[in-house]
């Protein structure tokens, strides 16, 4: 397995778009070729080496290539976008769109991720160890088709519109979330260990959401369907007792979306 190490070499003012940072692009390329890959800053393109010191070279295929980003890249967008194989490790925080439309391979972000991680992803694993912004694994504006497959794990908190239009795959969030989690979801699974503010499962017609903590403002179109304990979704287990709801009846006459809300944490529901 070949490893390419990218070390940020300057403070970035205007944000940079680096959708070339993928194992697919790096595969088969030597150090100097990687250095010459072009990234965008505003309307101009610059070699990758203007922003990163490059060490190592790509493997023979994407699968054989690991990219380690050695530092904070919170002003760099689109890292790992559309990647199909291989691995990216970010030893810091990333900007928007990390792993956007990714189809395979693995991305690990040790810090935080800005909004839109894993937009419309179809496969692979995207693991963010810190917090994430809005639109985790969601669809682009106007589209009702978000994440289709793969797994998105966020150890910390995430904000609004998680899994918008999700049709498949799993999103697992260790911390708390804000608004409109699973909006327009039609398939797949979202598990949130912490609390939610509002509109969980709004406009969903399929798929499953589990909220372990408290939901401040519940979605009115959800109808109670009793209780279930110790949920299991293949390798994902949620222990404890949950109130089960089906919905969203605001959006459909016979919706198939399921929301589980922790029983202890939601005495008022």
């Amino acid at each position, binding site marked *: 397995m070949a490893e390419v190490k990218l070390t940020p070499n300057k403070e970035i003012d205007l944000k940079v778009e680096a959708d070339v940072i993928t194992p697919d692009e790096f595969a088969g390329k030597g150090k100097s070729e990687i250095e010459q890959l072009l990234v965008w800053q505003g309307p101009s393109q610059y070699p990758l080496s203007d922003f990163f010191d490059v060490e190592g070279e790509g493997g023979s295929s994407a699968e054989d290539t690991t990219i380690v980003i050695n530092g904070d890249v919170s002003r760099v967008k689109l890292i790992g976008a559309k990647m199909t194989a291989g691995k990216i490790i970010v030893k810091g925080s990333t900007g928007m769109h990390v792993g956007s439309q990714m189809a395979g391979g693995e991305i690990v972000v040790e810090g935080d991720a800005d909004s839109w991680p894993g937009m419309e992803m179809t496969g692979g694993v995207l693991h963010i160890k810190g917090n994430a912004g809005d639109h985790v694994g969601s*669809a*682009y*504006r*106007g*589209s*009702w088709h978000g994440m289709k497959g793969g797994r998105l794990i966020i150890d910390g908190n995430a904000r609004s519109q998680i899994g918008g239009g999700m049709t498949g795959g799993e999103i697992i969030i260790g911390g708390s979330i804000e608004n409109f989690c699973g909006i327009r979801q039609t398939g797949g699974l979202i598990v949130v260990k912490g609390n939610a503010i509002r509109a969980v499962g709004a406009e969903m017609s399929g798929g499953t959401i589990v909220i372990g903590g408290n939901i401040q403002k519940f979605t009115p179109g959800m109808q109670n369907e009793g209780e279930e304990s110790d949920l299991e979704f293949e390798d994902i287990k949620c222990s404890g007792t949950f109130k089960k709801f089906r919905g969203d009846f605001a959006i*459909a006459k016979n919706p198939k979306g399921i929301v589980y809300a922790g029983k202890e944490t939601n005495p008022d529901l």
Partner: protein
Amino acid sequence: MAALIVKNGYVFDPLNEINGEVMDVFIKDGKIVSGLSEAEIKDAKVIDATGKTVMPGGVDSHTHIAGSKVNSGRFMRPEDHYKYNKPKTDITHSGCGETTKTVYLEGYEYAQMGYTTAFEAAVPPMKARHTHEEMRSIPMLDMGAYLVLGNNWFMMRYLKEGDMEKAAAYISWMMRAHKTYGIKCVNPAGVENWGWGENVSSLDEANIHFEITPREIIKGLCELNEELGIPMPMHLHANNLGHPGCYETTLESLAIPSKIKARQDLAVEWAETKIDPSRDRSIYLTHMQFNAFAGTSWRDFESGVKPLADYINKNEHVVIDSGCVPFGNATCMTGDGPSIHDIAVLTGGKWSNCDVDLECGSGVCPFTYLKNNPVHSVQWAMGLECLLLIDNPWQAIMTTDSPNGGPFTKYPIVMSWLMSNSFREQTFDECHKWANDRSELGGVDREMSLYDIAILTRANPAKTIGMVHRKGSLGIGADGDVTVYDIDPTKLDVNNHEELIRKFSRAAYTIKGGEIAVKDGEIVSLPNQRTYYSDITVDETAEKAMLADVKEWFRYYSIGFKHYPTPEKYLTNPTAINVNTEK
């Protein structure tokens, strides 16, 4: 501008009955000429078309590319845009949109396919300024637009009262006020009912309050159209569109003007053509495929094209465009609010609707035609049936009702299906078996020639809408609009449809008004565009009396009378066509 010679190509010019003869085409000062002087030849730019196909510039007589409903489509569909982008170049603007394209892209992509002329199919009068604003921004294409009148309060009132003189004066005033070209009639009487959430279901059902029937409106508008000598026949989007069984309504609708004689009265200098350039049809049915559904529900849905085609084969007063469905992404948009609403209920997707003061309405919803969907696959077959079962190509025009059946950029695929039986067979194999079981297409082995294609995409649309004085032919005096496709007719292999599609998609040359706009499928210059509208002469007294009515009823409009018309400022090279001058 230097003269231009398109040399040595295989020329297909149906209006001059030229079928693949090798010849030269000469253009001077933007017009086709019979030849050039020696001095002119010396300075002329020469395009070597040896081994290539030469046709007049393409003409689209029914497309949705400008105006408020088109823009509603663009507005509500960012997901249609974000993956379909064309960056700016030194001479072109950027653009985006697979089915709801931005204005610049519309001009460029039509030109890249060899088209030079496109007419916008529906203008809501009160929003005509918007349509013109967009047309002004569409590069390269010569354009015109049809005014929606089938549910207009003034029109319905005059027709109900039988006041044909004022009705004629109203049409004349409206065409001038809004700089539009012909009459469009969408779901007559039904769209007004949609103002209350209703529709009409038969030709003899009177609508709410105005108490006029679709039949009366169609008849009235067809009569007025010919009385005024308007360039094109009354352009009908029939009632019940998109509902199983609607073909029967369509059949009845086509019969309404069967006794009305076409009368086109234009003060223009016609280009020289062998075939009589004036039109002989009294009704132009649009997107026939959507109006040809048979069956009683989606379960027993089937093609109703055959009975309609049979009727058309026996009745010369009808011309149609097809509204083909080439599969894939589309955006449904029409002035028929209730029909779009029904589609949106079926899809459960996004839905836009806009009813317009005293005039008309519109609806928009995204749509995807899937090969494995039984109904969609039949619709694909039906669109091709419309063109293949009608015997006389001069009664048919190829469209996708862009972007309803699919975007116009898919015309090359449709052209290839028409030319290649093996390509149709291949598609039958790929799609749901209903396509074969529930249409007649499988039994058709007709393969269209390049000559037929030239009729369906150039000569006949131009003739139908009364533009042969400039468009649709390579006759002397016609506009210097020429398409060169890199297709050698002597070596044409229609089984290689992939190559055919590619060659129709990227013209070797598109020449517009004598300027080379496209070379090898790329935009190389941006010739000026023009907007045509009808300036119809009517009796002044009738006009005065009509205007008195209009002003009185104007209090029901939310816009003032003074701000209602469209000033010429919104048009690029406004070109009035004087109509009804002999009367």
